[in-house]
């Protein structure tokens, strides 16, 4: 199970009250985790990555194990601690704007 932590606005949009734990097919990567997340919560499509290019939206970042994974390739394996569910995969909104 992959543990994902979402920004408050996306949790509210998806009506998520508890923790997000996802079954991911195959290797845990940014792409497979986001695919699984969007399959569970279709209303999140387009809010984290672009519908067409699948690129991360510019004001969002991905973190895990105190590492910034935002610029890793989408099919790169996530750290073992994330893949095992011991550490969460953070989707974080930039501290910007008002």
């Amino acid at each position, binding site marked *: 199970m992959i543990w994902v932590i979402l920004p408050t*606005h996306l949790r509210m*949009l998806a009506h998520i009250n508890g923790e997000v734990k996802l079954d991911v097919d195959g290797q845990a990567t940014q792409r497979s985790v986001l695919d699984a997340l969007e399959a569970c919560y279709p*209303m999140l*499509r387009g*809010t984290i990555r672009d519908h067409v290019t699948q690129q991360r*939206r510019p*004001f*969002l970042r991905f973190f895990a194990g105190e590492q910034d994974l935002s610029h890793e390739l989408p099919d790169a394996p996530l750290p073992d601690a994330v893949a095992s569910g011991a550490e969460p995969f953070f989707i974080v909104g930039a501290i910007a704007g008002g």
Partner: protein
Amino acid sequence: MSGIRLLVGTRKGAFVLVSDGKRERWDISGPHFGGWEIYHLKGSPVDPNRLYASQSSGWFGQLIQRSIDGGKTWEPVGNKFVYDGVPGTHQWYDGTPHPWEFKRVWHLEPSLTDPDTVYAGVEDAALFRSIDGGHTWQELPGLRGHGSGSRWQPGAGGMCLHTILLDPSDPGRIFIAISAAGAFRSDDAGKTWRPINRGLKSEHIPDPNAEVGHCVHRIARHWSRPGVLFMQKHWDVMRSDDAGESWQEVSGNLPTDFGFAIDVHAHEPSTIYVVPIKSDSEHYPPEGKLRVYRSRTGGNEWEALTKGLPQRDCYVNVLRDAMAVDSLDSCGVYFGTTGGQVYASADAGDSWAPIVRDLPAVVSVEVQTLP
């Protein structure tokens, strides 16, 4: 007794304001989608409890929300807005080519006949349509593709398609307006388009006969005279009596003819309202006095409406989609400000009172007159 429902979009959420036909006491619900920018909400004319809302943020992009119970509950529907074909380029502020990029939905216009059909005016400027209640969206590509699209430029607020007028007497006719490209008309339900900007004068455009490039802020018209259009341009209030074939200035005695909002009385097709704003570099009312101006003659002769509005130290703006009229016997007029006030007049503008004073900055106001 009839009721009124105001749909208010703000920088930090949507609000629904409800009153009976007296329009004296209001129940306010919201914020819906708190923290998100709500550029526009609008109800279907044939199913008033069917509402559509444009929800967006710089972080998470665009969402479309739909309600089937008048705004009590909402569900997100489709948010995939993909330009038809290769998007190409428009002009950037400095005149260089800039790729077309979808940013947000500025305006939602439900069909006059089908609650599942709704149009979306977007930034960068294009017109989209859904025929399945907002689940999927398709661009009407004839607008961007008619020939002048590569010469369109953004206004200060972005290159937004902000006005969509459907014609109750002719299902094929649609008017739209883009800042800063101008006004356009389709006579075949959106398949083909042509600019309708003859007579508009814009200081920043050297060519007095420029086909496009005009910063149209808003167009309004009365349902009974669909060929008579009233326009608040960046500067100048304009009128067309021939469905946009030609325009004449009707600014008359306005203290300034800059502004954003314009609307038409529900029962008097020649009575129109604007809110003059001092200038394009000072987005607040002249002299710190918030005044609605009314013309009963279709323009040129204007009277200031001040009763109940702040007449000192007022420096708010009224944005282009933030004025609306109801259709009760005594026409109600409503507008919202960037200071978070929503003002209402139950007597066609003679007197005003705030419904609410402290909302986030108001972006849009729509009104529904309920049976």
